[in-house]
């Protein structure tokens, strides 16, 4: 899966988003996300989550309310250096960039995709357990993580049931 390195809520961003949705089909996007909960696909969890978040901010008015007045900068990094992603919320927009961002409110360093999934969104979310086991380390304001966790959890609850 490729990251959407662009801003939403611009016409261009929205058009590309709709392209993705029409190309893959909305069902398939949800399916990618749902499949992350299977262990073999956990590595792609962050990518799936951010993609779906971007889509839902465009499509779902209720969900978009989460970022109406929100400024937040997140840095996600895998311990092995394979993944370095910045996520910025500002002016009712969500931007995802590959690489290091300036002045993140919080940096989340995770051992692997599975540990990140367990940390943020698994059915038995285990933020504290992940931190105690040092599967995930954070630096910065945890309140931003809690908000992100809520937005991720909302997506999880929106997953259409198969059939």
């Amino acid at each position, binding site marked *: 899966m490729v990251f959407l390195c662009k801003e939403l809520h611009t016409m261009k961003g929205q058009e590309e988003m709709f392209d993705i949705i029409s190309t893959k089909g909305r069902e398939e996007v949800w399916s990618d996300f749902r499949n992350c909960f299977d262990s073999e696909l956990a590595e792609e969890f962050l990518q799936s989550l951010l993609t779906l978040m971007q889509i839902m901010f465009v499509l779902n008015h209720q969900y978009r309310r989460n970022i109406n007045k929100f400024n937040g900068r997140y840095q996600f990094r895998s311990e092995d250096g394979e993944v370095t992603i910045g996520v910025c919320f500002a002016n009712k927009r969500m931007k995802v960039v590959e690489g290091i961002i300036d002045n993140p409110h919080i940096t989340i360093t995770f051992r692997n995709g599975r540990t990140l999934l367990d940390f943020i969104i698994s059915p038995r979310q285990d933020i504290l*357990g992940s931190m105690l086991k*040092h599967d995930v380390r954070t*630096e910065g304001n*945890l*309140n931003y993580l809690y908000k992100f966790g809520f937005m991720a959890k*909302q997506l999880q609850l929106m997953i259409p049931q198969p059939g």
Partner: protein
Amino acid sequence: MTSITLDDIGLKDFTLQTLPRLKELRSQYFSRRPEICIERARYITKYLRYHDNASDSPEIRQAKKVSYFLHRKSAQFHDRNLIAGSTTSKALGAPLFPEFFALTLWPELETVSDRKKNPQKLTHEEATELNLDIFPFWMDKNVLELTRTRFSNPKCLQLFENLVFFIAAKAGCISHAVPAYSFMLEHGLSGMIAMAAEREEALAAATDKKERQQADFFRAVQISLQGIIAHATQLADEAEHLARVTNNSEDAAELIEMAAICRRVPAGPATTFREAINAIWICQVGIHAENINMAMSPGRLDQILYPYYRRDIAEGRLDIARAIELTGCLWLKIADNVTMVPEASEELFGGAGTVPAITIGGVDANGEDAVNDLTYIMLRVTELLTIRDPNVNARYDYEKNSSAYCRRLAEATLNTKSVPAFFNDKANITALTGQGETLEHARDYAVIGCVELASSGRDYPASSSIMMNLAAPLEMALFQGKRPITGEEQIGPVTPDPSELASFEDFWQVFKTQLDWLIEQAIQLNDYMGAVHQEMMPSPLLSALFIGPMDKGKDLIQGGALYNSSGATHIAFADVVDSLNAIEQTVFVEKKYTFNDLLEQVRNNFSGLEGEKVRLYLQNHTPKYGTEAPIARKNSRNLVQHLFNLYQSHTNYRGGPYRPSYWTMTNHAGLGGISGALPHGRKAGKVFSSGMTPVSGAAPELTACLNAVAELGGELVPGCWALNIKYTPEADVTTMSEYFAQTIEAYFRAGGQQVQFNIMTYKMLLDAKKHPENYPELMVRVSGYSAYFKDLNEMMKDELITRTQYGLTDGQAVPLPPLQ
């Protein structure tokens, strides 16, 4: 000196059958499910967003904020309780304090109502309000984030956020206090407001900065107390309204009486037992509006309320049944709130209550027997209700209190299987006078929360400021300043490789180097957070209910109390002592293993056949804390002495000392679960021992165990400890009560400060774990507080199951059955 007038101190004629109101309220209590209450979060956010004046002093800002809430707090009458007022808008509420950790709930706003473990109900509308309106306001404004910003994300804060070294409780509260309610009952809040106004007036012309601050403080006191009176008025209004609309004349009469009481107290002085009880409760509600309910303890209620009880009894306004009923109503009110616990924290704090402590018995300020009729009434109520909160603690002076009293305490413990906890007046008064408290003040100590000691209304001990994981510095000593769980990161100072050390004394020095460094980090963070509390969370309302602040013109958080200290408690004490014993014995005395051998086994978690062989040797053939082994006695004494010296050499942000203590709540389970193997044969991930209790299975003889713990008591443990003992229930309760009381007395005479019991067997607890539906009300002592067994996390349940079980008659440990 007081005298007992009861014919039967057991009050056995009074049961839930003869007290139908208490039976009904108790039944309702157990049927309620916790609901999250957002009322306080809503109004204080609104106040700060739209009305706050940043140019006001911190005390006035806080007073206005709290008063704004109290003026708007809903008046609720959820049931037929005779006491008006509730801490939250829900029948069993979990209030949110966004100044602290409320935002940890954010990720589960949509799921907390239905989560598997300890769900807390939250409506969709409330969740939406929290998500979109309340929580966003607090993103950068809670104590933790203000500390991070103000002190540039210091190393000590990062260590705390690692969670595996120490817990800095100020991020979640200070609370932990016992107010002085007698003055309030005598003068009423209106009288106290008048005093504060007079003192403010006297400073009206002051230009000196300190005097201006004092004037601001007195102003803040008035604003805060007026908030409580406003809420009492709302309660009266609502009671009158309900009386008008009800069709039941009996209910209407009760509501009218409650309304009349709320119009009289706490604004005016209390004149009856019932007024005194309701005045105290409404003030507790006010305290909860200002500070989160973590161990906000009402204190020595049998002493405070006794004059009102005695007068009412003498004048025929009250009988024993009504006194029991009113006391029971207060107990159930105190139990009307729980802590909001995010699912993620269940591992550490699952099942914990809010631990408001009530203290009964002991001696008075003159050192004479203070046990009175009300002591026994409170004991009977505790026995009849057997509910988690309040946490009832019994003081016992083996020279002044009667043996009948001790036997009655024993009997109540056998009947409830877990409460009350026992506190030794001799040792605890010594501990407090050792801290510079006058003898009269020390004699008036009450228990806070789990086990901590405070002279009632004079001591602001912030007793849970630091929770230090002692296993962390031990591992850092073994691995040159690193811990296996934090990998290659250099945490503490680089100390010598243990394998190069020539003696146990050298290793002890290395351990102390790491321990001292870590404690200094924790103290540094506590002082940083204290400075943030001074700006953000003063307590003018609570201060008004203390002795000291009104004389000094200074808030508690600025050092207004007579005695100012910060408490530091310790996790894994017994495991660390036993590890030191094992190192000393096997590496340096017997030379059975080299330090390298031992380290290798610890690193490998005693894996393989050889590892298991070594582990069994360490577990079964090294000196254990809780026995008479000289090495174990020496190491436990040295550790307690060292911690005392270290803490006492530091002065906190309020100008007081740090006081060590030994209680663990459920942290010994959570932190044990993530800690590596230790040299005494404990494998990685196993729970630590609780409080001051020897490691499970390590102390086979009860007498030796109690003596080994008791000899550490007194001046060196000013914050007290929690010792957990499990007894096999025996058929002959009378004989068992006798043995029980004798054992308590012997332990106290040897110096033991505190002990608490679970009267249950391995088998019963195993069954309760397997079939929780059969034990819905099973209450157990954890480490300083009570919990319902079914609410505890799995690790904590296992810890309770495996705690050493002793036969009281033969004083021997019962073998632990094979665990499936």
